[in-house]
């Protein structure tokens, strides 16, 4: 046990040196890192560098409602094409279905066959596919189209993926802000953005659906509170100019959709100096917009954003160039925000923030310095105790503790793990736990010496016997931390990572490295008594 081959010695020292080298990229600027070194560094958690952690939930009810509305529209079209008589066509979002009643129940089978074209196949593993809609006709003429579980799941997946893309374009259009967007569970998205940010602005960008549509107004309808709008018309609120609120009778029919925009930029009206958003349509949008404006010169049309009328100007002349302008009491900031939203596109469904954790960069910096002071003082106390209690062997353990810290940081860099404030606490606790191995060994050696063993045989026995205990006690800690990692989020998972890595590396430093030091010392000195 107390002899090391030359190869083994160099291997142990090599691991230590490798650890030191792997820590280098954390200390020097990125450009100064030599090319042969992996450019892997420890990430600082949001609680240390400041930033926002937002857990967003896709409103699945809205997704279902929208899908059912589309189905309702398509059913209406099909029934008209097939000349089938029906009544009571309605979407029932709670039951995830669309129902209607046939005038002639005998047409049931024919109608089901005609509507089957509306279903979309969903691939469910192993190349099998199931329809996203279940269509059934009852003998009494009641036809139901129900969204299947598979269809719903596919819709959720599509909505989440689309939302991730759009949110990314909104909050990190240039990809320079290190925003991370990850799907969590069935219908959630975890958004993290590090650094000094305005969390309120990010939440506004995320919380707006930004569905923009262009509608004509129904000039005959008189919107008033308590009056039901005529069919095909909805009363929407909007800015009536000079801060007053107005209600507009907006036709439901969408003339042009915001999805047909190709660009949107904030700008200033050269005459009035007022902030506006200039937009450009793509080819389809340009054609539709030209058509609408040509046929409706002199009539007002409304630009509707998320069920709110932003502006309702009167069309003065046909607009064929595919360009337009939205004005309406914007500030520089709100105009550029709307431009970003329009460029990124509309979310398929509203997003709600279900969990928020934002930390200012300054608070994060305070946390780092508090953490570093704690680590320094803690190291000093632990090393001081070991030196006083075990003398030379305590110093060996202290060297091992420092190497342990170095190797833990090296592994954190290699894994590109995230260091959080609880993670720093874990680092320090693992220092306290890692000297446990040396305390076990030293106490054991001391006992063996008392039992009358020679120095060499006491050392051998101490290391051999203590090892099983060390293994046992470290394994129990590792089991704990694995569970904590599995169930904890963010900062807490960071705690589990640093403690686990600290304990793992201590198995190497506290036993192997200290044993090497002890063996070299023993061979050099050949002491007649051990300094324990």
């Amino acid at each position, binding site marked *: 046990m107390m002899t090391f081959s030359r190869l083994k010695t160099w291997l142990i020292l090599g691991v230590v040196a490798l650890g030191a080298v792997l820590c280098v990229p954390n200390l020097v600027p990125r450009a100064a890192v030599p090319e042969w070194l992996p450019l892997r560094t420890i990430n600082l958690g949001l609680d240390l560098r400041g930033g926002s952690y937002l857990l967003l939930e896709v409103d699945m009810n809205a997704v279902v409602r929208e899908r059912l509305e589309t189905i309702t529209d398509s059913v209406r079209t099909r029934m008209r094409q097939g000349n089938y008589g029906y009544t009571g066509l309605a979407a029932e979002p709670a039951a995830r279905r669309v129902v209607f009643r046939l005038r002639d129940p005998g047409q049931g089978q024919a109608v089901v066959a005609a509507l089957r074209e509306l279903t979309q196949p969903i691939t469910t593993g192993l190349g099998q596919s199931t329809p996203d809609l279940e269509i059934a006709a009852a003998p009494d003429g009641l036809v139901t189209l129900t969204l299947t579980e598979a269809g719903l799941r596919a819709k959720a997946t599509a909505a989440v993926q689309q939302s991730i893309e759009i949110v990314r374009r909104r909050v990190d259009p240039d990809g320079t802000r290190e925003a991370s967007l990850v799907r969590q569970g069935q219908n959630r998205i975890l958004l993290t953005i590090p650094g000094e940010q305005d969390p309120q602005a990010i939440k506004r960008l995320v919380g707006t659906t930004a569905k923009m549509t262009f509608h004509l107004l129904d000039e005959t309808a008189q919107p008033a509170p308590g009056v039901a709008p005529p069919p095909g018309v909805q009363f929407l609120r909007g800015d009536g100019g000079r801060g007053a609120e107005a209600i507009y009778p907006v036709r439901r029919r969408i003339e042009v959709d915001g999805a047909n925009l190709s660009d949107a930029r904030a700008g200033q009206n050269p005459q009035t100096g007022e902030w506006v958003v200039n937009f450009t349509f793509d080819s389809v949008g340009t054609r539709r917009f030209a058509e609408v404006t040509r046929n409706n010169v002199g009539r007002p049309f409304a630009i509707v954003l998320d069920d709110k009328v932003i502006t309702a100007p009167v069309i003065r002349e046909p607009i064929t160039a595919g360009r337009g302008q939205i004005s309406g009491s914007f500030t520089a900031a709100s105009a550029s925000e709307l431009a970003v939203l329009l460029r990124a596109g509309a979310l398929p469904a509203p997003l709600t923030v*279900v969990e928020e954790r*934002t930390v200012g960069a300054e608070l994060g910096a305070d946390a780092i310095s508090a953490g570093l002071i704690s680590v320094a003082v803690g190291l000093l106390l632990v090393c001081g105790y070991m030196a006083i*209690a075990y003398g030379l062997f305590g110093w060996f353990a202290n060297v091992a503790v420092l190497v342990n810290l170095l190797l833990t940081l090296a592994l954190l860099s290699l894994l590109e793990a995230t260091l959080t404030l*609880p993670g720093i606490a874990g680092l*320090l606790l693992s220092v306290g*736990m890692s000297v446990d191995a040396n305390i076990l060994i030293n106490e054991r050696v001391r006992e063996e010496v*008392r039992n009358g063993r020679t120095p060499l045989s006491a050392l051998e026995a101490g290391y051999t016997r203590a090892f099983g205990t060390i293994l046992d006690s470290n394994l129990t800690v590792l*089991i704990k931390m694995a569970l904590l990692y599995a*169930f904890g989020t963010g900062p*807490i998972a960071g705690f589990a990572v640093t403690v686990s890595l600290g304990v793992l590396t201590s198995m190497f430093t506290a036993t192997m490295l200290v044993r090497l030091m002890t063996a070299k010392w023993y061979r050099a000195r050949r002491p007649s008594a051990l300094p324990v």
Partner: protein
Amino acid sequence: MRYFENGKLRLVPDGTRIPFMRGRIAGLVVSAILSLASVVLFFHPGLNYGIDFQGGIVMEVRTPGPADFPGLRAILAVQEVGQASLQQFGSPQDVLIRLPRQPGDDAAQQRAIDRVRGALARDVEGAQVRRVEAVGASVSQELFQGGMMALGLSMLAMLAYIWFRFEWQFGVGAIVTLILDVTKTIGFYVIADFQFNLSSVAAVLTIIGFSVNDKVVVYDRMRENLRKYKTMPLRDVIDLSINETLARTIGTSLTVFLAALPLALFGGEALREFSVVTLFGIVIGASSSIFIAAPILLFLGENRLRRGSEPVSVPGPGGARSGKVGN
């Protein structure tokens, strides 16, 4: 007692023969009373759940001068955000505002944050919102379930591990001790009025890890001594093993304590509760190895781990030691 030997600190003198098992009843009774009291405290007044598990909003605000608490209370009272609680957080400039979970959906939480932010920006000059945490109803429920799952599973994992590595009496002894440790920690949370959050679960798991670690070391020695001294009564084997590992138990507890102490002192408000609880747990874990885990083992193993182990007074631990068994 000599605390220094060969110029080195010895907290535990060599060759102690403290008859720990003589105090086994007292140890168990005291522990049981403390744990029972903790269980009572858990139900009344009850654990102070933080926003992770209950939902709600926490905002850390720094004001340019010492915070004007009555003024801030008055500002918050008219925001219709429920009963706000304010607390100094570290320096007198820093205030922690806690808001209950807002009735309604998750959007209501965000509206409350907006209102408070707006009011602070308007009415408190130079106020700076340094941190905001908001957890909604569904997420807090999931976090709670996850946290409890982690605690429960770790207990089971410990039971399984010790059962696998030792005889079943050791496993039962360890798990009963852990339950007693955890209940006391919960009681400490109630008495100290600390928030029970996700980080508290981490603290409890750390304490469990440390405590089990300690039990493993003592149990390891007991098993070794059971094999070594084939005729020694179980009671004496346990006393001998505790005495032999006493220096290590105290040394390791001390180093972990020394490592965690600066976190409580300098680690900032965010880590203070976590580290104070960890310090408490280190003391609890170390003492429970001696006063709880060992007596339980003695009760469970009296006639199983060693046949015919009537308490014999003649071959005490020291006596057995002189008849050293070499290997």
